[in-house]
């Protein structure tokens, strides 16, 4: 009797289980849009190789690698240092004229760029007390390069378009001291903290000693490490691409099908025929190294921007690099080795001339204009560049796989749609332009 009852319960359970499976199968197979309309959603066929290629671009977010921006900065995770760094980031007193702060070019409302083709930095030029020519600016009063975004900067191995800094704290120091950017000095940096009671307290709280107990250089480096700690908090949010990528990873095709078809087509090109993912690979969509992509790099007639070549020389020449006396040496040989190796083992090569850093693409739609000198106004122009690439412009020692992609207009549009999907939902503003009238007149 008991056995009969048990079998009856077993049959009932199996029936329930079978029903669940049938319902689930139906639900998975059911189209999300009526068949009469062309599908704007759905899942394209993705081969195993394609899926593997997509999966390489995540998961997101990720912690910075040991050899990335926080290398040599033991204060990077300190909330007190981050708080001080934020205050310093927005403080124009660090500049020679007292008029320019880090935030003047790295504006939070523009994804920490300035929206300009090339940077306007120098306080004296803005104020009209010096001419751009006097400090080596181009004839239009601008610096040679586009202001890069600071979002995810802590994830990067090299800083700046030429990688002239091997850590975020070194990079934070460079524009402050550069006479063409903020025009400040080590002494002035320390003086700003000494003269401000609130900053002095924050400094002591962050580093356990007052700035007055340190010399100018030591105090300024710690201030730069605080700024870097703050910049390290600027990370990008998850995006529609991440939802798609993670759905593929867990085999959830139904969730993956919510990713727009145009973005899927663009992604297929990105990891496939267009070969974008050879350089824009990994969770940040960059291998973190440098490339010559056939763009003109003349700064002015007769003068070129040497890019990575000059960046390496400047890096190795600086006492603020990771081999220098100010880089913190963390416990643990592996971490230490990875951080120092990248600088110690750098191999300058002829092909570095005219190379620039391959930028990460997360949030790329928010950081127009594009390329090292901002010469391409929007993402369509970027895709068009690769479509119509002129091989004659490529350095003879440069990347040999670059060829014109010859994408159709529809394919170009798909690629742009995919790039938009690398921004958090609803932030696709690659047409943002400067509104500040003071800067406008300098453009």
């Amino acid at each position, binding site marked *: 009797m*008991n056995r009969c009852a048990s079998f009856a319960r077993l049959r009932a359970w199996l029936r329930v289980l079978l029903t669940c499976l049938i319902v689930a199968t139906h639900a998975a197979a059911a189209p999300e849009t009526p068949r009469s309309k062309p599908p704007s959603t759905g899942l394209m066929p993705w081969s195993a190789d394609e899926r593997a290629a997509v999966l390489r671009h995540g998961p997101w977010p990720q912690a910075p690698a040991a050899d990335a921006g926080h290398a040599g900065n033991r204060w990077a995770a300190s909330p007190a240092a981050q708080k001080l760094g934020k205050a310093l980031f927005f403080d124009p007193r660090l500049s020679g004229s007292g008029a320019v702060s880090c935030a003047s070019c790295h504006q939070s409302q523009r994804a920490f760029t300035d929206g300009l083709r090339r940077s306007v930095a120098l306080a004296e030029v803005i104020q009209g007390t010096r001419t751009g020519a006097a400090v080596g600016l181009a004839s239009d009063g601008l610096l040679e390069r586009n202001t890069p975004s600071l979002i995810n900067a802590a994830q990067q191995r090299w800083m700046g378009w030429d990688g002239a800094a091997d850590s975020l704290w070194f990079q934070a120091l460079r524009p402050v001291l550069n006479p063409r950017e903020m025009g400040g000095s080590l002494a002035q940096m320390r003086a700003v903290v000494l003269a401000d009671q609130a900053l002095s307290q924050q400094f002591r709280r962050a580093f356990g000693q007052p700035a007055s107990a340190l010399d100018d250089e030591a105090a300024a480096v710690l201030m730069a490490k605080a700024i870097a700690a703050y910049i390290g908090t600027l990370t990008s949010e998850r995006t529609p691409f991440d939802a798609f990528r993670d759905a593929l990873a867990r085999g959830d095709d139904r969730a993956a099908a919510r990713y727009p078809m145009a973005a899927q087509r663009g992604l297929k090109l990105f990891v496939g025929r267009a070969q974008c993912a050879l350089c824009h*690979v990994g969770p940040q969509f960059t291998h973190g190294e440098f490339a010559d992509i056939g763009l003109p790099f003349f700064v002015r007639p007769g003068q070129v921007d040497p890019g990575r070549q000059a960046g390496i020389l400047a890096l190795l020449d600086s006492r603020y690099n990771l081999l220098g006396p100010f880089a913190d040496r963390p416990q643990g040989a592996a971490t230490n080795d990875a951080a120092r190796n990248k600088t110690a083992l750098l191999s300058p090569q002829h092909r570095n001339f005219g190379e620039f850093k391959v930028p990460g693409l997360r949030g790329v739609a928010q950081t127009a204009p594009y390329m090292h000198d901002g010469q391409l106004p929007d993402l369509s122009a970027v895709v068009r560049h690769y479509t119509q690439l002129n091989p004659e412009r490529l350095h003879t020692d440069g990347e040999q796989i670059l060829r014109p992609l010859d994408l159709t207009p529809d394919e170009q549009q798909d690629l742009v749609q995919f790039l938009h999907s690398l921004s958090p939902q609803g932030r696709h503003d690659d047409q943002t332009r400067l509104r500040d009238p003071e800067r406008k007149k300098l453009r």
Partner: protein
Amino acid sequence: MAGASVLGMLPGVVFGVLMLGTHAAAREQTPVSKEPPALHCAMSASSVPHLIQAAGGPVQVFVLPEPAPIPVGKFFKLSLLICERTAAGELRGWSAAQPRLQAVQAEMPAHRHGMNYTPSWRALEPVAAGGAGLTTTVQGLMFHMPGHWRLTLTFELPATHIGQAPQLLRISHDEQVR
């Protein structure tokens, strides 16, 4: 009674199986960094995952990357074991006239470029007690792009006869990096 017990557990088992499936689907392969296994001349390449085996002239090389598989855009190192290959194909440790590791290079043939970093290593030294062959660790390699890389190790083989000059021996291995 036993049947009732099993049936009573069924909902839990079904739930457990479903949960297990969900977890398995969500779980992703992540590189695991473990202590590399000890290399020795008598080993079979298939006995160690990701072990690279290459040969040229009298030299047999076992190369173990760490982490493995070799990641894109991240530094990795190579543990090397160099064994002597006799004319009969037997592998053994070096006795006298040992080779010297002169260069470690890698390039992407299709791209015609190499690495952006110059690897470093210490001179080959005999494997610790009880082993055979010569060993070293090469640091600071990075394959910064996915695709086909060619790793080339250059050895200087000492002169074995009076008047003979040392010879250079290059041993290459092709690796598809994903």
